[in-house]
């Protein structure tokens, strides 16, 4: 365990799961027989967390499973294997991008990569890794952080599962990151097994409309000044400087054409795109799918491991629930990030159309707690909760979830899938409500 902390995030609970795994899903067994349990006191929750998961009484899909199995189905019969952006994942999870912040680009990221590989889930490598950390130095004598993550992942990933996704943003494009990787022999096994994707990053949850920001020392700031804007916002006496990347300019035509370029130039790589929680995220997602994107990742305003101005963290961007509501029934593979760490929130995102959910801060905290197995234990706990919840809903595959599995106490039923039994968008909806 290092000194990593995640205020505002259920850090203690994540650490408990990183230590205890599936045991942490349940109350302490030491209290069994002597303590009575009920709902815990309500904690501050966003709109997605306020939705209740509501199993039906009548379960025709359970009957189908019963007929199939010739016995009563159990929660262990739930199949969580799913297709994620052209890959096969053992769980409806992926390891989110960490970016080039200090917390996300050091040893923790390498530990997270190794564990994500063992779990058989895809891993996204964030933007700005190459412009900041370099790619290949001293004739390969020193492994770059990016390559260390890739090699750790490849050493552990089971055949047929997982995949690596590499983001590229404006400054990465200057460094031609995708070109570097596509022709690097180290990536040949991924290309040959169809397990490399490139993700066009247009934004992130923590700071919609802004490019990546990190804090750097004075010496590093001078080195980076040629590639990034470096601003002196902490005062002249401070040893710190603000390194700013540009967010990139997008219109629907720019997005469409960039995706086509990706498919044209890197035909053996899958094409992913990640959006910040913008007010037109539904239109952006549809444009991306129509242009052939294998996956669209939406980062809710709760998302991002990133360091960002306080006003952005607190006040900017749509909550994940509203992003998913606006997108409605997805035209392709939809992935969701933003405050994911346990099965209930993940299930709600899946029920609203996501194919998988991303672990960002939770993954970093978990590997910080236990570099060898923390993320695996966290994912095991989450997977157990998902199996319990999905089977409680009378379903036996993650992809079978739907908006009917949720109830919204803040208002009328969420029209998450407009093609289903949904109400039209309601202009009079209470502000902040998901419905």
């Amino acid at each position, binding site marked *: 365990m290092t000194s990593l902390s995640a205020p505002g995030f259920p850090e203690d609970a994540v650490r408990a799961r990183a230590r205890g795994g599936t045991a942490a899903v349940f109350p302490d067994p030491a209290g069994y027989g002597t303590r009575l349990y009920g709902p815990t006191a309500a904690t501050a929750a966003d709109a997605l967390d306020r939705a209740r998961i509501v199993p039906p009484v009548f379960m025709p899909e359970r009957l189908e499973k019963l007929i199939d199995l010739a016995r009563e189905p159990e929660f262990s019969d739930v199949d969580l294997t799913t297709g994620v952006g052209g890959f096969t994942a053992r769980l409806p999870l992926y390891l989110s991008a960490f970016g080039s912040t200090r917390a996300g680009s050091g040893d923790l990221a390498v530990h997270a990569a190794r564990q994500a590989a063992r779990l058989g889930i895809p891993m996204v490598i964030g933007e700005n890794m190459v412009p900041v950390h370099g790619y290949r130095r001293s004739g390969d004598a020193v492994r770059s952080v990016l390559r260390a993550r890739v090699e750790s992942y490849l050493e552990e990933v089971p055949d047929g599962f997982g995949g690596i996704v590499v983001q590229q943003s404006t400054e990465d*494009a200057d460094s031609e990151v995708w*070109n570097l990787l596509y*022709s690097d022999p180290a990536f*040949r096994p991924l290309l040959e097994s169809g397990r490399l994707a490139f993700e066009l990053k247009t934004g992130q949850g923590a700071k919609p409309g802004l490019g990546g920001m990190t804090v750097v020392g004075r010496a590093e700031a001078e080195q980076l000044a040629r590639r990034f804007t470096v601003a002196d916002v902490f005062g002249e006496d401070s040893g710190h400087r603000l390194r700013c990347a540009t967010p990139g300019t997008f219109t629907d035509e720019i997005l469409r054409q*960039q995706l086509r*370029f990706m498919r*044209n130039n890197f035909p053996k790589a899958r094409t992913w795109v990640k959006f910040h929680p913008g007010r037109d995220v539904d239109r952006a997602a549809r444009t991306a799918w129509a242009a052939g994107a294998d996956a669209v990742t939406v980062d809710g305003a709760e998302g991002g491991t990133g360091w960002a101005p306080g006003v952005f963290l607190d006040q900017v961007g749509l909550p994940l629930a509203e992003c998913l509501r606006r997108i409605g029934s997805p035209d392709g593979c939809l992935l969701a990030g933003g405050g994911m760490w346990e099965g209930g929130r993940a299930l709600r995102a899946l029920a609203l159309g996501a194919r998988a959910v991303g672990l960002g801060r939770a993954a970093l905290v978990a590997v910080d707690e236990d570099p060898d197995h923390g993320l695996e234990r966290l994912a095991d706990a989450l997977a157990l909760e998902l199996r319990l919840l999905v089977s409680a809903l009378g379903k036996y595959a993650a992809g079978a979830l739907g908006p009917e599995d949720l109830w919204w106490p803040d208002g009328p039923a969420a029209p998450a899938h407009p093609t289903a039994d949904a109400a039209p968008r309601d202009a009079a909806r209470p502000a902040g409500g998901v419905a």
Partner: protein
Amino acid sequence: MDQPQPTTAPATPPPLGEHLRSPRLRAAMTVQQEVLQAARDYLRGQAFTELLPPLVGPVTDPGGRGAKALDVDYYGHPYKLMTSAILYKQASLHGFPRLFYIAPNVRVEPEETAGTGRHLVEFHQIDVEIAGASREDAQEIAAGLLTHVTEHVWTAVPDVLTGLGRDEADFADIRAGKYDVHTHAEAVARLVAAGHPQNPDGEIDWAGERLLSLETDRAFFVDDYPKGSRGFYDREDPDNPGVLRNFDLIAPHGFGELVSGSEREADYATIVTRMRESGENPAKYAWYLKEARDGIPASAGFGMGLQRLVRFLTGLDALWQVSAYPKLPGVVAP
């Protein structure tokens, strides 16, 4: 009938000394020097001026299909070896409204291209640019160039070509200036009908291009590639958005693409927007964009691959056989 390409992947080059001593390379270089002389004669006869291209610059053609540029340290600045001098061709139009280069290019092609027979890391192209020209003007020059070069080679060194197994009758159409024209959409439809899964938004893939080339006895142009398959400098058709005013010239009998060309974007705001659409950061292209803001002449032009042309004429299987110092994609060579 030309010898069709072998169905097995071409062998890789022998050690350099052995390669340089081979009679086959000598024959190929004899053809190459006739090609170069004929190309220069033709273009100079059409009032073109030969310039020598730059070798390094702050930026080069962004390329496509996974090809990348090599970095060089230029007084501490990250410069690129030219993958194509297209941007310099455009800038040169102010002083040289009809210009050409015999341009060396370096492209680190993805390893998957090592077996196409049509890719080298180091190659040359006959690079032509014409101020005020349309696509059709550029196609006329490209076709005229190919016709003239073919005529000259069959006149100057027919024994070399027949010694390599070439049949003069197979070049009758080209020497007579007969070419077919198809659109990209038509090419895609033919491939899909033949059971080849061709992406309609993209470049014709290597296998698809070979299929098209194999099923014809006559060279042909493919016009109107979709935006998203080519560089930002290929001009979008104002009357047909999403379609480029560009072309390839494909050789028959499986030898594939010889030429890529287009009308060029010359409008500053359009160039910047197109750069973004191709994922480029305009800041990299500062010098070029300054020229564009000041006004680059409208133009059309093309690049004809020298080694591809020599391979087509000699009928050899792979580009490395017509290069004195071959570097195949992914194969480290001296």
